């Protein structure tokens, strides 16, 4: 009897593994926007790796700080060397879960507003965050979009006083990713 139970349990776990649906992108987009009295600054990163497990609701993003591209080369330089210290902290990551996964039907086309909670790591500092976003399913293709705000001081990103009017204390981050199904 015991053996049968163990066998059933093993089969169940194998079954769960096989049906786990993983979707991914390696070229997602995350950009940020800083609005300040002297100037507005925008930078884009189109090399975002993101994974969603539609069975468990796990969702991850990771990007390289030095892949953010600015209009002005000087800004890009200061961003990497002075503010983000990208040599020391090359990556930013988010690992979390879709809180209200049951609201999403990945098999039916539609737009589903969701809440995501997890750990956001920037500049070597990890904070728990919760943000809202949208999951869209169009012809079986999953895409995710979200907008949230990041307070620079929460991540110990210091802006020198001399440029404090050039850079916002809170920047707006925009996420836009479109996923491919991962073949198991």
């Amino acid at each position, binding site marked *: 009897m015991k053996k049968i139970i163990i066998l059933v349990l093993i089969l169940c776990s194998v079954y769960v593994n096989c049906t786990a649906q*993983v979707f*991914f992108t*390696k*070229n997602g*987009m995350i950009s940020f926007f800083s609005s300040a009295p002297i100037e507005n600054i925008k930078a*884009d990163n*189109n*090399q975002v*790796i993101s*994974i969603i*497990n539609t069975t468990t609701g*796990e969702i*991850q993003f*990771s*990007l*390289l700080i*030095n*892949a953010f*591209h600015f209009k*002005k*080369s*000087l800004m*890009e330089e200061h961003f990497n060397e002075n503010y983000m210290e990208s040599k020391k902290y*090359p*990556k930013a990551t988010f690992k979390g879960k879709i809180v209200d996964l049951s609201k999403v039907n990945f098999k039916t086309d539609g737009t589903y507003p969701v809440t995501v909670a997890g750990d956001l790591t920037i500049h070597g500092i990890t904070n728990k965050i919760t943000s809202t976003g949208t999951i869209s399913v169009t012809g079986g293709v999953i895409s995710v979009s979200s907008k949230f705000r990041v307070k620079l001081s929460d991540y110990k990103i210091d802006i020198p006083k001399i440029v404090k009017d050039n850079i916002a204390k809170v920047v707006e981050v925009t996420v*836009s990713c*479109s996923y491919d199904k*991962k073949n*198991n």
Partner: protein
Amino acid sequence: MTKKSGKIFLVAILLILAIGLVAAYRIWNKPHKNVEDAAAITVTATELYNSFIKDSAKANELYTNKVVQVSGEVSQVSVNQQAQQVVLLKTAVEEAFINCTVEGKKVNAKAGDKISIKGICSGYISGDIDMGLLGDVFLIRSYPF
């Protein structure tokens, strides 16, 4: 101070100010590095990927933030959300690529072609072992070579 030397002094000050302003303006508007014409480190896609897998600290020192010219076989050509071309070069590891985002000039290639592509290496992002996704090495601001 005589009237004449005063005038010279004023002109000198104005000149210094003007030079300063021009210099500041030029630094402020410094153009992005010209990747297309820059000297590059040549490497094959497999070599580049393996070096990040073996010793990422060493690979970062050798390649990250530098212009590299990578040769390899095209696995896929696609377009990202900002309408930039994305070229994946095969490595020795299946489902792991040199992921190149193209700037400006289009890469004229299709899956199976052997090409060389030049760009700034931004580094390696690991995937997720639990979810079975392998990482890529990224090239930004790439040009066909």
